[in-house]
Structures are given as structure tokens and as C-alpha cells.
């Protein structure tokens, strides 16, 4: 008669937990009212908007605007109800913890995964059902009113986008909830989810108006990957120890500084000792990130090279011999071979690395790598264009890139790897410490690499770029 909850399987018990929560949601008018409104009334409003807009633009001979507006509204109709999933998830995880109804569940033989999955399903079910119903109502409306039927692929794309966005928001909400003890604090932190998702929806809208629906597939894949990463992180954080070990939401700056400074100094007694630790301990830990960053930056170069075939520059723009003639004047105008020019180059590179770090913090390091890929892509693009005109691209690379790249490329690889490591620390944190502590230690690791290696390399690379590269370029390209 008796069985352990764990032995009842992951899904039956998860559905049991989800079922209770969904019934509870359906008894709560604060959740029910917006869902009903967004499911039934909002699509009708969007229908009206679509009809009026199509009539208006057709009158002025621009039917394409209407054609693009209808799929966009289809996506909007799906997005609005799923935004409630964020509220439900915060309520389900942080709210239950705040009301202290979570502990009786934690005291049962339920596994963490059963409870986590149950709550995930409960947070997704009602908003997704509302979103699908809203899309259905909208489609009936546009079919009846203006005879528009969606292409099957577009409909699948919108349904997948809607689902992926909901999963990302809910998984993100779990991560946020695990770091707070109150719904209020969780709601404040929820802006970390809602702002990027809003930006994403704006981006998707532009893509839809632009008519590049293929890009949406990439977004769907990226969203599901992010959802996978976040759900893994959520599962890691949603455990009894994390949930009950945290009692208060107090920003302890002194503690934070203590953890960061301790990890940054790492018991070093002198600068030499510190550098020894950096080279022998910190850098070896980065090897997988270093490898990944190197591959990505190299890929950036080849992508740029590939793009040169599609978007070729006029041949005389990349004529190295012709370029060599005016190099001296160009270098003077750019302020090269001056101390001011050196500072300008160094400052520019520091800003780029800083921006990469900032973007990397919010994207698990991904956007940092994307940003660092850009200059490599540009070099690949120019090298490709040089090759297209029958010239030797090595001449271009050796004359204009190689001297300072010997220092700048290692700096970029190290910076990218350190940022990537920082992002990975948030996704796959080690056991035995809070997320904040782990992140602070990873940030200290990033600071060690940045201050100890990246900054000196950038200073040297800047000097080479300003004082050496121009001379090499003049020598190789103009013979002077």
C-alpha cells in the first residue's frame, strides 16, 4: 500500500503537485482575471486593430504593412498571457516560501526534482493554455474578418516562441526566487527577466516586420538553450539546503567585499606571490574557457572572411599598394606614433573589454564573446577582400595586424575566457557555497586575470599598435 514518493516516478508526483497548484490558481481571482481578459478580450481587440490597420494601409497602397502586422499581432496575443507566468512562478516559489507552506512539503519524501518540476509545470500550464487559447481566438477572428490564414510554419514558430519565452521566464523566476525570501524582493529582481524578454520581443517584432522569419528559428533554438541552462541552474538551486539555509535578504557589503578581496588576494604575500598564484592556479582553471574563446574568436575571423564573398568591397579600396601611398598621412591624422594616440587606443580597448564584461554578466558570457568576435570578423572580412583581389592577405595581416595582434589577441582570449568563466559560475556553481558567494569568487577571478594580465597586455599592445605597427606597415606597404 505504501510507496516512497521518490519511487512513484518523477512525472506522476510532479503532475500531482502541479495539479494542486493549478487548482489553487484557478481559485485566485487575481490570477484568473488577467488570464481571462488576455485570453478572450485582448485577441478581439487585436482583431479589430488588425482589420482597421489592413483597411487603412490598403487604402494607401501599402498592403505589405498589413501583411506584416497580422503575424506580429499573433505573437503579441501569445506573449501577453505568458507574461503572467512570471508572476505565478514568483508566487509559487518565493510566495510559498514566504507563507512558510514550503517546509511541510520539504519534510516529505519528495525529491527536489519532483517538487521543482511540479512547480515548473504549475507555473507554465495556465499562462500557456491562455496564450494558446488567445492565439486561437485571434486566428478565428482574422480568418472570419479578413480571410487571413497563417502559414503552418509561421504558426508553429509563434507557438514555439511563446512556449520558449514562457519557459525562460519561469526558469529565470525560479533562479530569482531561490535568492530571496519574499515575493517583494523577488518582484524587484524580476526586472532582470522582464527587461531582457521585453527587448527580445521588440527584436522579434522588428524581425517580423522585416519579414526575416528564418531568424525566428534561431531565436527559438537560442531560447530553448537558455531555458535548458536556466532550468539546470534552477534545479541546482532549488534544494532543501539552499531554500532553508537562507533566512534573510540583507545586502551585506562588508561580507561581499571580504569574500571578493579574499579571493582576489588569495593569501598572496607579495606581488610576485600573487602573480605566481595567477599563473599556476587561476589560469589553469580557465583552460576550457580559453579553448572555447579561442575557437569562437577564430570562428569570428572565418565568418568575416566568408562574408567578404557575399559583400565584396570595391577592389581599389583594398589595393595594398595604393593604400601604402597614403599611409603616412593617414597615420598622422589618426594620431598614431604619439603618446596621445597610445592612450586613445588603450582606452578604446579597455572600453571594449569592459563592455564585453558587462554584457557577459547578463548573458552567461555569450554576448561578451559575440562582442569580442566583431574585430576578428572585421579583420577576416578585410583579409578576405584582399584575397579576392588576388593579393596576398598575409601581407595585409603582417603589415597592419600582426605586430600588435601578438599581444592584443592573447589579451582578448584571456578577457573572453575570464568573462565566460564568470558566466559559467552562475550556471554551474560548485557545491557548498551560496550563489552570491560563488559569483563573487568568480568575479574576483575575473578581476585577477583582467588586472594581472589583460590590462598590461593591452597597454603593451597599444604601444605596439601606435609606435611599431605603423612603421612596419610603412615599411611593407610603401617601402618607406
Amino acid at each position, binding site marked *: 500500500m*505504501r510507496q516512497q*514518493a521518490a519511487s512513484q516516478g518523477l512525472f506522476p*508526483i510532479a503532475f500531482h503537485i502541479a495539479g494542486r497548484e493549478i487548482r489553487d490558481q484557478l481559485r485566485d481571482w487575481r490570477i484568473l482575471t488577467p488570464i481571462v481578459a488576455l485570453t478572450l478580450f485582448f485577441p478581439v481587440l487585436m482583431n479589430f486593430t488588425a482589420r482597421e490597420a489592413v483597411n487603412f494601409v490598403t487604402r494607401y497602397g501599402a498592403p505589405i504593412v498589413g501583411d506584416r502586422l497580422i503575424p506580429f499581432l499573433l505573437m503579441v496575443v501569445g506573449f501577453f498571457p505568458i507574461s503572467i507566468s512570471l508572476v505565478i512562478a514568483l508566487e509559487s516559489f518565493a510566495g510559498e516560501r514566504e507563507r512558510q507552506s514550503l517546509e511541510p512539503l520539504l*519534510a516529505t519524501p519528495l525529491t527536489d526534482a519532483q517538487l521543482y518540476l511540479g512547480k515548473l509545470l504549475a507555473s507554465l500550464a495556465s499562462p500557456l493554455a491562455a496564450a494558446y487559447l488567445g492565439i486561437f481566438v485571434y486566428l478565428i477572428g482574422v480568418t472570419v474578418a479578413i480571410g487571413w490564414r497563417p502559414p503552418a510554419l509561421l504558426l508553429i514558430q509563434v507557438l514555439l516562441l511563446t512556449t520558449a519565452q514562457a519557459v525562460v521566464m519561469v526558469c529565470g523566476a525560479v533562479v530569482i526566487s531561490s535568492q530571496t525570501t519574499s515575493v517583494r524582493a523577488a518582484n524587484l529582481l524580476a526586472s532582470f527577466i522582464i527587461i531582457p524578454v521585453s527587448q527580445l520581443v521588440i527584436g522579434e517584432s522588428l524581425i517580423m516586420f522585416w519579414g526575416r522569419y528564418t531568424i525566428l528559428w534561431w531565436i527559438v533554438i537560442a531560447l530553448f538553450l537558455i531555458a535548458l541552462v536556466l532550468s539546470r541552474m534552477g534545479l541546482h538551486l532549488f534544494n532543501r539546503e539552499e531554500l*532553508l539555509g537562507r533566512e534573510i535578504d540583507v545586502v551585506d557589503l562588508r561580507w561581499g567585499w571580504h569574500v571578493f578581496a579574499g579571493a582576489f588576494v588569495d593569501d598572496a604575500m607579495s606581488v610576485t606571490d600573487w602573480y605566481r598564484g595567477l599563473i599556476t592556479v587561476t589560469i589553469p582553471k580557465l583552460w576550457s574557457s580559453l579553448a572555447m574563446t579561442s575557437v569562437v574568436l577564430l570562428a569570428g575571423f572565418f565568418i568575416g572572411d566568408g562574408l567578404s564573398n557575399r559583400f565584396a568591397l570595391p577592389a581599389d579600396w583594398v589595393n595594398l599598394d595604393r593604400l601604402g601611398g597614403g599611409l603616412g598621412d593617414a597615420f598622422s591624422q589618426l594620431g598614431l606614433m604619439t603618446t596621445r594616440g597610445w592612450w586613445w587606443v588603450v582606452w578604446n580597448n579597455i572600453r571594449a573589454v569592459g563592455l564585453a564584461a558587462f554584457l557577459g554578466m547578463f548573458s552567461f558570457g555569450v554576448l561578451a564573446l559575440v562582442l569580442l568576435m566583431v574585430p576578428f570578423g572585421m579583420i577576416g572580412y578585410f583579409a578576405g577582400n584582399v584575397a579576392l583581389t588576388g593579393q596576398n592577405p598575409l601581407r595585409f595581416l603582417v603589415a597592419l595586424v600582426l605586430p600588435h595582434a601578438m599581444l592584443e589577441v592573447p589579451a582578448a582570449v584571456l578577457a573572453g575566457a575570464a568573462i565566460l568563466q564568470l558566466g559559467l559560475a552562475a550556471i554551474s556553481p560548485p557545491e557548498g557555497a551560496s550563489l552570491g558567494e560563488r559569483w563573487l569568487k568568480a568575479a574576483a577571478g575575473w578581476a585577477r586575470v583582467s588586472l594581472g594580465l589583460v590590462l598590461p597586455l593591452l597597454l603593451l599592445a597599444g604601444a605596439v599598435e601606435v609606435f611599431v605597427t605603423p612603421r612596419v606597415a610603412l615599411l611593407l606597404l610603401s617601402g618607406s
Partner: protein
Amino acid sequence: MLAPGRTAIIPLTQEMALIEAQDLTKQFGNLKAVEGLSLRVSGGSILALLGPNGAGKTTTIRMLASILRPSSGEARIAGYDVRQHPADVRRSVGLLTEHHGLYTRMRPEDYLQFFGRIYGLTHDETGRRIGRLLEQFGLAEARDLRLGEYSKGMRQKLALARALLHEPPVLLLDEPTSAMDPASAHLVRACIAGLRSPGRTVVVCTHNLVEAENLADEIAIIHRGRIIAQGTSAELKRIYLGDPIMELRVASELDGAARFLPPGVTQVAAGEDWLRFRVAHPEEVNPRLLGALSKAGVPVVTLAEVPRSLEDVYLQVVGNVEGKGPASAWDG
């Protein structure tokens, strides 16, 4: 009473310690919430973990319920190691949390059915147990109300029913009557007292001294994560407050009463018509004293033990630990 295990069924006996903890320690960052705690509680008894807020009672309970992992030390609940068999431990434990944590939109039967399924009970079996528990706790009349409509005492009783639903051999009750009005607290205490049975161990965490004294067979005083005193109420009083003190009242003046006291009995205070003395074995001394007084024609009004509360013990024990003297008023 059977406690089903993953691979073997372990028969529980009254003599078997249902709770065994050795050097249990829990550290949160720099804070040691529990340090070197050792316990052994057998079936059929009620243990009160007594201590102020923040003493480490809840953390101890959570470790024993396998909700938190001990930083060091060992604990076995109904024979299961809290680290190695957390699911078995949780199935062997009924936990009443300090806050009832009920889902207030649900009705009691739905609520208990929800937990019954998690514990792997069939719908019918859970139904039978629900009927019995609601009757036992006087909630049968309120079975159609939503839990949000329940009074505080009713909610706590339903939370107790939840803890008992899977018939666990170990009950861990964390502050079961905190913030309750006296009537509700009385009801809940009566329920807890009724849970005593040979195959079951109850641990009650409380900072209510009267509750601990009335309910528990044994009391452990916990302070800053350590158990600083443990024993029955009488043992603790004897250890920390000394031998019992008797008060003799007579109907006349008590001049030279000390001469009636048998050897080995110490007078601690006296008034015109009363006398207090400390005695190790009152059952032997008091009859002799009464006989002597009667023989001397002293009209005795009362001879009774001066009541000493657990509060006195508590203040003494905590005072000792903190290096302060106790604020006790009973001996003069």
C-alpha cells in the same frame, strides 16, 4: 508498528532509540547554529527541546527531519541515517513546523489527500485515516470549511493531523503553541499529550517552560546550539536547584523549632510561625518530624514542598553558562 525501508523492514521496539544523534553540528557561513549536539530518545517518550529563540532548536529539528544536512556528526531516525537515507528518514518523521503552512484555499480532506498521495497512500486508505484524525482532533464538524476559515488552534490541529497522516514513528513538533491564545494552546497540548504511545517518540521544541514541564518526560535545554542540561524535570531541579525545600507552618509561635529537625536537615529560612528546610529524602524525614512535633504538642498547619519551577532551573542553567548568577527567589 512497522517502518518500511527500501530493502528491509526494521521492527521498532519501545527499547530501541528512535532518535540517535551524535555530535551533530550545523554551520551557516560563520555561524554555528548547532554545535556538537547529542541525543538519544526511545520509543514511548516525549522530549522537550527547551531554549530561547535562535538557540538552534529549529535547525536541530530540520537536521533530524533530513531537511538540512548536518555539517558534521551523525544522526539516525528510526534506524535510518539522515545523510544516507533522507527519503526514508522523512517518511519516518512527522513534522509540525512552527508555522502551520497550510494551503488556505483548500478544504481539510483535499489537503490531507494531497499529502497522502505524496506519502504513497491510496486514496481510500488516506480517506479512512483522514476520518479518524479529524474525529480525534475534533475537526470533523469543520470538514466543509476552507482552511482559511479555520481558527489558529484548528489550523495547528490540522497541521498535526498532516504530520500524523502517514503514521510516523517519530514526531517532531516545532513550537506547536507559539503565538496561540491560551485556549487554543491548551487544546493543542492536550492533543500532543494524547499522541504518546509505545512505538512513537515525540520531540517538542518550545520556549514555553510550562509546556515543556507538563508535556515532556525528559527535557533538554539548548543554548547557542549546544545542549547544556538534560534530564527529567525532577532530575534537573535536583541537580540545579539542590534538594527539595519543605515549608512547615504551625498555629503557634515556633520558638526553637530547629531542635525538632532531624540531623542532616538544613534550615534555610524561618519566620514567627513558619520554617523552611532543605531535605534530601523528605519521605523519610517528614514523618519523623511530624511525629516529633506532635509529641511536643506543636499544632502543625501544613508541611509542604515549596514549589520550584522549571523556570528556576532554566535561569540557573543559562546563568551558569553565561557566567551570571540566577535570579531565584524561592529560598528565602
